[in-house]
């Protein structure tokens, strides 16, 4: 995996916004939190499919000589 993922800061923010939105919509803290988790999971998987996979493919040839981990 050998990827330093700074985007976790963004997922942290997105999770907070989703939670605030879903808790306001559903009126339940626990239900809103679970919806927010599921939504952030989907966002993360979409980011991997759209961006990370291509980034890794594009940079592996340059960075694989670096010590792994």
């Amino acid at each position, binding site marked *: 995996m050998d990827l330093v993922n700074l985007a976790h800061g963004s997922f942290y923010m997105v999770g907070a916004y989703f*939670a605030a939105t879903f808790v306001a919509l559903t009126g339940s803290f626990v239900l809103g939190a679970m919806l927010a988790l599921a939504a952030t999971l989907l966002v993360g998987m979409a980011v991997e499919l759209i961006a990370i996979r291509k980034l890794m493919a594009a940079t592996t040839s340059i960075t694989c000589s670096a010590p792994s981990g």
Partner: protein
Amino acid sequence: MLGTFGLILFFNELVRLIWGPAGMNLPLPPYLSGSIEILPDVYYPVYRIAIIAAALAVALLLYLVVMRTRVGMLIRAGASNREMVGALGINIQLLYTFVFGVGAALAGLAGLIEAPILTAQIGMGENILIVALVVIIIGGIGSIRGAFMAAIFVGLADTVGRAFLPELFRLVMTPAAASALAPALSSMLIYLLMAIVLVLRPQGLFPVDRK
């Protein structure tokens, strides 16, 4: 790594487009917003106890999934030799997408836990990145156990430093010098710890075996 920094900029603007530039509050339900008496005359917010419980639950769950299930075994195998796992007929790309998604969800969980205390706002995630990096370096890169231990260690060092260093310095120097030095040193403390760990054990406190 630079690409993921680009994602931060992208998400900051996306959030600004969807939710607007103002922050959002996440109100706590009544059953989480009180305080209870944990020691005689010592009150502690229920929500903070819930945070501790949730964090420990996540740690336990993560340990069980990674160490005790088939999916966890595949994740560990993929981390040490991606091509071999792929050659054995596992859809390693799909697995990676899923693992990345779970990582995102865990980060999102941290964000939603913090949202009632701070507010959900643009750029809130950047503040945690540097602390997260310190934790990872001290624990050993790639080590889940190391991250767990280092997170407790760094959290304790930071809080105890902020709470007690000013008092400690007042004992040995003038109050003026102490009140100038203590806040500076206590906010530096975790980076000093990281520097010391890097000098003594560059691979971190709990390095991963890579044979």
